C-alpha cells in the first residue's frame, strides 16, 4: 500500500465489490483504481479470492447422520429420565431415609447380637467372660466317660507304671 489514501481505498474494497458503496464513494474508488496500479492489483486479487471462497466444494453429511443423531437423542432421553428421578426431591429424601434406616439397622444388629456375622471376633461386655457355646474340654471328657460307663478306662500315671483299666505296664529302668 502506498499511502493513507490507498489504505482508505482498500478499506472500501468489500463494499465496492458488493456494489453497496454510496455513489460518491464508488466514484472515488473508481478514480483511484485508474491511477494506482498497486491498489488495482490488490483489488483484482481480492476479487479472485472472493470467487475462490464462493466456489469451495460443499460438504455433505454422511448418510448415517440422522440415525446417529436419533441414537444420541434416545440416550439423552434415557439419561434425562434417570437424572430427573434422581434429582426429584422426593426421591432424594427417600434415598436418604433408606440409607439412614440401613445404618440404624446395622448399628442395632451389632448392639443386640454381638455374635452376628458382622461382629465376629469381637466379644461384647454383655457376653460375660465365657462364650456360651464354647466347648469345655474337661466337661466333655467326663461326659464321655460317663456315657461309656467305664470310669476306670482312663489312663493313670504313677511312678514306674502306666495302668489302664485291667492292665498295668511296668517300666524297667536299664540304668539301674
Amino acid at each position, binding site marked *: 500500500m502506498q499511502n493513507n489514501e490507498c489504505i482508505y481505498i482498500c478499506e472500501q474494497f468489500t463494499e465496492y465489490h458488493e456494489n453497496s458503496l454510496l455513489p460518491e464513494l464508488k466514484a472515488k474508488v473508481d478514480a483511484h483504481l485508474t491511477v494506482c496500479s498497486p491498489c488495482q492489483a490488490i483489488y483484482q486479487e481480492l476479487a479472485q479470492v472472493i470467487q475462490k471462497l464462493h466456489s469451495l466444494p460443499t460438504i455433505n453429511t454422511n448418510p448415517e447422520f440422522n440415525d446417529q*443423531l436419533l441414537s444420541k437423542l434416545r440416550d439423552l432421553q434415557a439419561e434425562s429420565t434417570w437424572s430427573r428421578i434422581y434429582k426429584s426431591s422426593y426421591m432424594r429424601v427417600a434415598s436418604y431415609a433408606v440409607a439412614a434406616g440401613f445404618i440404624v439397622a446395622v448399628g442395632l444388629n451389632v448392639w443386640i447380637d454381638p455374635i452376628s456375622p458382622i461382629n465376629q471376633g469381637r466379644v461384647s461386655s454383655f457376653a460375660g467372660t465365657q462364650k456360651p457355646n464354647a466347648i469345655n474340654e474337661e466337661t466333655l471328657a467326663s461326659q464321655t466317660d460317663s456315657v461309656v460307663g467305664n470310669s476306670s478306662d482312663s489312663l493313670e500315671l504313677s511312678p514306674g507304671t502306666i495302668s489302664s483299666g485291667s492292665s498295668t505296664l511296668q517300666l524297667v529302668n536299664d540304668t539301674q
Partner: protein
Amino acid sequence: MDAVTPKTDEQLIAEFQAGDEQGFVELVNRYKDRLVNFVYRFLNDMTDAEDLVQETFLKVYQKKHAYREIAKFSTWIYTIAGNLARSELRKRKRRKTYTMSSLSYDDNEFTPVDHGKDTEGIVFNSYAGEEIMKAINQLPEPFKTITILRDIQELSYEDISTILDIPMGTVKSRVNRARLKLQETLSYLRE
C-alpha cells in the same frame, strides 16, 4: 387449490415447541449440511464436525423453549454451533502438545488439514481449494470466523452481526480486513 409453500424455520421450531417432533426432523434436514460446512472449516476433521453438529441439534432439542422469535432461527442455531466449535478449539489448544509455528510466517498456529479422516467427496481435488483452506486456517480467530460466515456460508451482514454479537460496521470492516489478509496470505503461499 392452495400452493404448498414450505414452512419457515420459525414455523417449524414453533411446531416443535408445541410438541410436534416432525418440525425438529425438518430443521435437522435443512441445517445439517450447512452446519457441517460451517463447523468443518474450524475443525478440519469431518468426524469431529459431524459430532459437533449432532451436539448442536441435541442442544436445540433440549433447549427448544429457550428460543424466542425475536431472532431468526438460523442465527440462533449458528450461534450454538459456533460456540461449541470455539469451545472445542479451546480444548484442542489445551491438549496440543506441539505447534507447527515454523510453517507459519505469522504468529498464528497452523492447523494441518487431516485428509485421512475425510469422507469421500470431501477431499479437495483442486489445488486452489486446498490453498485457500490453508490460508483461512492461518487467519487469526475473529477473521477466520467472519470469513467462514460471510464468504463460505454466505450469511448476511445482519445475521453475522447477531451471531457474533458485534455491530454491523465492525462486521463489514472485519470482512474487508479478513479478505485483504487472505489475499496477502495467498500471495505469500504462491511465492
